[in-house]
Structures are given as structure tokens and as C-alpha cells.
């Protein structure tokens, strides 16, 4: 008996993902990403001067991440002012980016990454981080690798990849946001709520690693489209 989910996916299957780089002309780099019903636009500005000067570090640069959700992106209208959740996500995703971006290459400067969620359906932060990696590459920012991000977890007794909102609402639901540098397997984002045994944790991590490799492949394919060829 093959176990299938409400939307017909296998336990390990990701929702459809679409990535388009270079969508914002004024920005130094950008990407549009759809992940299931999630829709996000990410723009990168920088490296640029960080003022006031006393906030800048003469030995290395910094990268900032600002995560915002549109009031119409969720079921109940959300106040456009950033809430505590938005600020926390901005912080941890920014920290994930700080490990992959080569900050020593632009001392005293800043790379600012902005993510605007237009439609949300569980997994907005991993969508935004996956898109951010593409936008940073689009901007020519030096990085160790393309960060790939995915959510894994548990619902109704199964360890799953990429939970939807209704799966997140299951009574035994566990949701884990995960991101790593695929080539070195360095984990840069890890957040979890729910209860997992160590065995379940191992299973979830194994799936997360596999899916990140898959996602990196999609990021690469999307960026390849920037290199047009003449017929």
C-alpha cells in the first residue's frame, strides 16, 4: 500500500517549485519563486556602503535579510507592520546567509536582501531563503555555495518532506525548517517545533539533505536561463 498525502504527493515529494531570476530591474540581483501556493519576490542590493560608518566593520562586510508578508498573503488579513515572527525570521535567515556569503570580500559594506511574501501556504521562510540564494548569485555576490532550504517534519505518524498548512495543523505535527550548503552539508538554518524521537529526527534529516540537493539543482537550472544563446 502506497501512502499518499491529501494533495496526492508521496511522503518525500516536494510541491511544484518555479524559480525565475532577474525579475526586478532596479535591484542588483533578484528572484521570483513559487513553491506550491507560496509566492515570494526577493531583491538584493549591494555590496553597498554601510552608513553610519561606525556601524561598519573594516575587516568584513555584513548581510541583512528583511522578511515581510503582504496583508493579503494569508487567510486572515495581516497587519502590514512587521510582527515578532517577521523579525525572528529575518534574523535567523540573515544569519544563515552570513555563513555562505563571503563577507571578507567587501569589508565595511553591506549586502541587503529583501523578501516580500505575496501568498503564503506553509514554508514561506524556506521559500524566501531558497529564492535569496538565487538572487544573491544573480547579483554576483561571492558565496561558498547556493544555500538550499526545505521544511521537513511529521504529521499523522509519517515523516514527510515539505508540509502544507493542513499537515502543520495535524495533532502530532512537527515542523522543521532546514537549510544547508549542499556541497559541504554545513547546516545554516535549523528550527523545529513539535516532538521527535532521535530516530524520527535522523529520518527527517536524511530527507532534508536529499531534498536540498534536489532544490540546488532547481536553483542551478533557473540561473542557467540567464545565459541566453543565439540560435
Amino acid at each position, binding site marked *: 500500500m502506497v501512502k499518499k498525502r491529501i494533495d496526492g504527493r508521496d511522503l518525500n515529494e516536494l510541491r511544484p517549485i518555479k524559480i525565475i531570476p532577474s525579475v*526586478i*530591474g*532596479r*535591484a542588483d540581483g*533578484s528572484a521570483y519563486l513559487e513553491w506550491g*501556493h507560496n*509566492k515570494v*519576490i*526577493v*531583491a538584493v*542590493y549591494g555590496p*553597498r556602503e554601510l552608513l553610519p560608518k561606525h556601524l561598519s566593520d573594516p575587516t568584513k562586510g555584513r548581510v541583512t535579510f*528583511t522578511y*515581510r508578508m*503582504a*496583508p*493579503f*498573503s*494569508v*487567510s486572515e*488579513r495581516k497587519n*502590514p*507592520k512587521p510582527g515578532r515572527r517577521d523579525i525572528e525570521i529575518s534574523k535567523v535567515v540573515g544569519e544563515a546567509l552570513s555563513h555562505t556569503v563571503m563577507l571578507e570580500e567587501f569589508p565595511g559594506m553591506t549586502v*541587503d536582501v*529583501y523578501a*516580500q511574501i*505575496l*501568498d*503564503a*501556504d506553509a514554508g514561506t521562510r524556506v521559500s524566501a531563503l531558497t529564492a535569496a540564494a538565487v538572487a544573491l548569485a544573480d547579483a554576483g555576490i561571492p558565496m561558498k555555495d547556493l544555500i538550499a532550504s526545505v521544511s521537513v517534519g511529521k504529521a499523522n505518524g509519517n515523516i514527510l518532506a515539505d508540509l502544507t498548512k493542513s499537515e502543520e495543523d495535524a495533532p502530532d505535527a512537527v515542523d522543521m525548517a532546514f537549510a544547508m550548503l549542499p556541497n559541504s552539508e554545513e547546516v545554516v538554518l535549523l528550527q523545529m517545533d513539535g516532538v521527535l524521537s532521535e530516530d524520527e529526527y535522523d529520518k527527517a534529516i536524511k530527507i532534508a539533505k536529499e531534498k536540498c540537493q534536489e532544490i540546488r539543482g532547481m536553483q542551478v537550472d533557473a540561473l542557467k536561463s540567464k545565459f541566453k544563446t543565439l540560435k
Partner: protein
Amino acid sequence: MLNYVYDIELTKNKLAKGERTKGRKDDEYREIKIETGFLKNAAGCAKVQLGNTLVYAGTKIEIGQPYPDSPEEGGITVGVELSPIGSPDFNAGPPNETSIELGRVVDRGIREAKTIDFKKLCLVPGEKACFVYVDMYVLNHDGNLFDACYLAAIAALKTTKMPKLDKEYNVIKGETSGNLVLDKLPVMTTYSKVSNKIILDPDLNEDYATEARLSITLDDNLNICALQKGEKGFFTLEELKEIIKTSKKKYKEIRKIIEKL
């Protein structure tokens, strides 16, 4: 892509000679592309590309208590955010005077033309009514944010699906019940004065070179229902009449685009 701001002097000189980029006429719009109905959670949505200017609008309907001075009416709230995504000059943070002016001008155009009959949004007089929230994001600034935001708002409103309500007028999640009805389809057009020339739909360079700006909204009867002059320059009375004349000419063209949605 060019960061156009440096071409301001050049733009002023060219306009003085009657030249616009790619031979555009003084009363010609750049290419307008509008998409609607692509978001799951929004009641209505629109993506507008006016040249390279990109604006997203989304609507949400909430059930709330009518205001004491209009107990039998629902209402509409319009907001614009100049996202830091859209330009190196936009900062993250609370709305500034530019985004507030944009929101209020778009609101006025829609409201004064009596686009929506607020009485039809009333559910229980004095107690419950539908309130429509239009939120817009400027995600790429290439000039004429006024018209781009206006088109996004009206397109999102026109394609807004009303929520289904239960007997107590609470929203039933995931179900809709018909479209938001727009009684009118007003049209807003925005003009810049640069080097004593009046031009429609300024691009980014022309926007930065603008001495005075006028947005005019016409209703279905070609009556003027909203006006807004902005920037630190001035208009002569003749220039204002000229603008009204041009806006009446452009009305049909833009109305056709909105009607098709």
C-alpha cells in the same frame, strides 16, 4: 539595467526639443500589462507592469462595525508600500509621505467616483458591514507610480471575490460568493511638467525631472472626480485645461483595458 537618474539633464534638454525615449509621444502610455487572479489567499489581486514599473495589489475583505457617522455603510482602505525591493532609494520602515500621498490619491479617485456603493456592503445597520482593504507594493520603480498603483487597485477590486458568510455574518473560510460589484470604472491619468512640456506617464528620468505633477481621475460621465497636484513647481491655467482635454481623450483607451479584466 541603466540607473536612469543621471540622465535628468539630458531628459530636460531632449524634452525641450520635443523628444522622448524611443520616440514616445507626449500623450502616449508605455506598454501596460495587467494580470489578475493569481494569488490563493487574496480576495482579489493584480500585477501591473507600466513600462518597467511593477506594482502588485491585493484585496482582503473583513467584517467590521460601521463608523458611527455612516452606520449603514461598509468602506474601503487603500495603502501603498514603497518596498525597498523597488528602488535603492526606498527604505524599509513605516510609510513615508510619498507612499501616503500615493495611497490617498488612489483612494480619492476610487471613492469620489462612487466606484463602490458602500451601502451595498452593509450587512446589519450599525453593527456589521464589509470593509475592503487594498494593499499595494511598488516592487520596481521606473516612473509614474500613481497610474501604476491606480491600475493595480482598480484591477484587483474589479476581480475581487466576496467571501461567503454564515447566518451570523462570519466569514466561511475557503468559500466565495460572487464578485465585488463596481458600479463605475473611473480612470486616472498622471502628467508631469518638464521643460514647460506636459507629458503623460513619466518614466523614471522624467519623474526625477518633474517640476510639477498632476493626477486627474474621470468618472463614467467624463466628470472630474479627483485632482492632485504634486511637486514644487506650478501649472498655468491653460496647462490645466490642456491636461483635462488629454485625460478625456485617454479615458476610453484605459477604460477598455480595465473592462477586459
